[in-house]
């Protein structure tokens, strides 16, 4: 008998009575506030920042102010910003290694946790989300959902092959409990509210 069949047979033999353990209906619990204010507060708690544009300022100008160092490689995945390199010119994960800043639009955000959702539909090259040093994320305030329960009702979880909820930048506290923002993935993550 294959491992598969013998595991399944043992499980069926050893299983507690299924009738004694019914499945509860899916729950939507907790705070239902889906406001941009709640999202921002949660994002700050997770170590992310907001990128606010001044009156009349373009996205490119706001990004240049946030990342003033000359000569940075900036990859824009959105029509709202130009950047210095196009994603089409980065055919492999290895070619995305030198990218300093990536600008991408999230499919949606979660107010409870300040998370943004990205998939291959937004990223084209999934690895760029983790190889880039910094990330600027555009988010339509109309696409903020209240919490994790409402988030999992979104269709993206049934269509994306890779879907990541990023909640602030990468972080670690593995050395003597000291919290470090910017571990192995993005060093910073900024969200800019921008209707689509």
């Amino acid at each position, binding site marked *: 008998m294959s491992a598969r069949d013998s595991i399944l047979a043992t499980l069926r033999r050893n299983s507690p009575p299924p009738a004694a353990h019914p499945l509860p209906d899916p729950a939507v619990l907790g705070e239902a506030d889906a406001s941009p204010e709640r999202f921002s507060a949660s994002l700050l708690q997770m170590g992310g920042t907001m990128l606010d544009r001044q009156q009349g300022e373009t996205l490119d100008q706001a990004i240049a102010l946030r990342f003033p160092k000359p000569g940075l490689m900036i990859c824009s995945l959105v029509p709202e910003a130009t950047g210095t390199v196009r994603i089409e010119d980065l055919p492999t994960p290895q070619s995305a290694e030198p990218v300093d800043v990536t600008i991408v639009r999230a499919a949606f955000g979660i107010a409870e946790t300040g998370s943004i959702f990205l998939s291959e539909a937004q990223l084209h090259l999934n690895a760029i989300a983790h190889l880039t040093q910094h990330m600027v994320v555009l988010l339509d305030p109309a696409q903020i959902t209240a919490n994790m329960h409402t988030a999992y009702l979104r269709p993206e979880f049934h269509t994306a092959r*890779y879907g990541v909820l990023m909640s602030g930048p990468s*972080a670690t506290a593995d050395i003597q409990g000291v919290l470090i923002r910017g571990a192995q*993935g993005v060093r910073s993550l900024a969200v800019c509210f921008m209707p689509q």
Partner: protein
Amino acid sequence: MREKPVNHAGAAVAFIADKPHLDFHDARLWDMRQKRDAQMHLLPEWQDLRSRASAIKEHALANLADYLEEFERNAKSNGIHVHWAADGAEHNRIVAEILEARGARTLIKSKSMVTEECDLRPYLAARGVTVTENDLGERIQQLDDQMPSHIVVPSVHKLTSDVARIFARSYGTDPNADDPHQLAEAQRLAARPVILHADAGMTGGNFFVAETGTFVVCTNEGNADLSATVPGVHIATIGIERVVPRMADLGVFIRLLSRSALGSPITQYTSHFRGPQDGSEMHVVLVDNGRSARLGMADFWTSLKCIRCGACMNTCPVYRRSGGLSYGAVYSGPIGAIIDPTFNERKYSTLPYASTMNGSCTNVCPVKINIHEQLYKWRQVLVEHHQMPFVKREIMHMAGKLMGQPRLYRAAINGTETALGTLPRFALYNWLNPWGKNRELPAPVKETFHSWYRRNRPTAGKATPETVKTETKA
């Protein structure tokens, strides 16, 4: 060959002797527990979440074979290769075959407790595959040739100076570095080229969803997503018990997991893998390794609900003061003490005694596993199976006799109080009193309750239920 039982108490003695490490370890884990409490108090629905998480897991376990088949069907239709491993050896063989078929010589790997169970790294090393852990804590443990001492924070028993020493040896950094930022940056810089050139990547999985064929990986450092998305081959090793029926169930578990583990609302990364990208491969290895047998153990099957948050470890006074390595097992702390004996009853027969039975582990468990009751049950099983050390068995025999005879018990108690009050330290703290090592005996009381009662109620004699009731009212 029969393996000797782990000497948990002996290892704990060594851990306690090192005060700087002990103090940090105790304080750090207690801080995680307090941060968890703060998050819990923010959510009025917390207890509802726990009840639902428990019910969903119990349902999934009671229908596990069906949900595994459903997951397999959906994952396969999305292009994921699904493998089944009855035990660690089969798991390792499957992984080695996947790598060999692709000529892969280097594997970049994020943290996975199941691969620790299977002891994957030495197996692959012997076949010429270089395995590099890239979770910071796990990498520190790999470089120091130690098991993870905690399921969430693998190197929590180490201080910055320990990491500086290890990194100096392996990465050539300053052995006197005392800034964790500097050391974390060293890990980032050392890992990047290894990730970029790895032939294959490996992760674990926190959950998998039968309905969609998705598996979910919850991490903070970004290393798991790098391992998964940069190389063209992604292998995920997952224990068969980690299934949830529906995508909508994940909300309950994601809300509980990081809040219980670290006291943060969510991990920085919650990654959902439903299929490979164009031009790359994705494999899931479903590992049994004793789980299907555990499902049949009436008193212990609910330990399979565990989502590996580590909250029971952080709250446990014994774990905090003995360190994860003292358990001599892949899983340490209270959850380890109830699942390790299912792997090897004799070797881990000492672990269910590493508890004060205070029940805190049960109270913080996000999926409501009755951990302290299972610890107690294990002690019963081990006694029945004669897995109790001789001295402990004899002491228990004596205690049983003493407590079964009230007169004898009272005489002994009075004698003890006199001894505590009058005997010099050397007579109280010696090898005849292992309890007194590292602990102070309780201060002697002036009088036992029994003798006070006899003095104050000289005529009442034996208390009847009626007299007790009257006194309570008065």
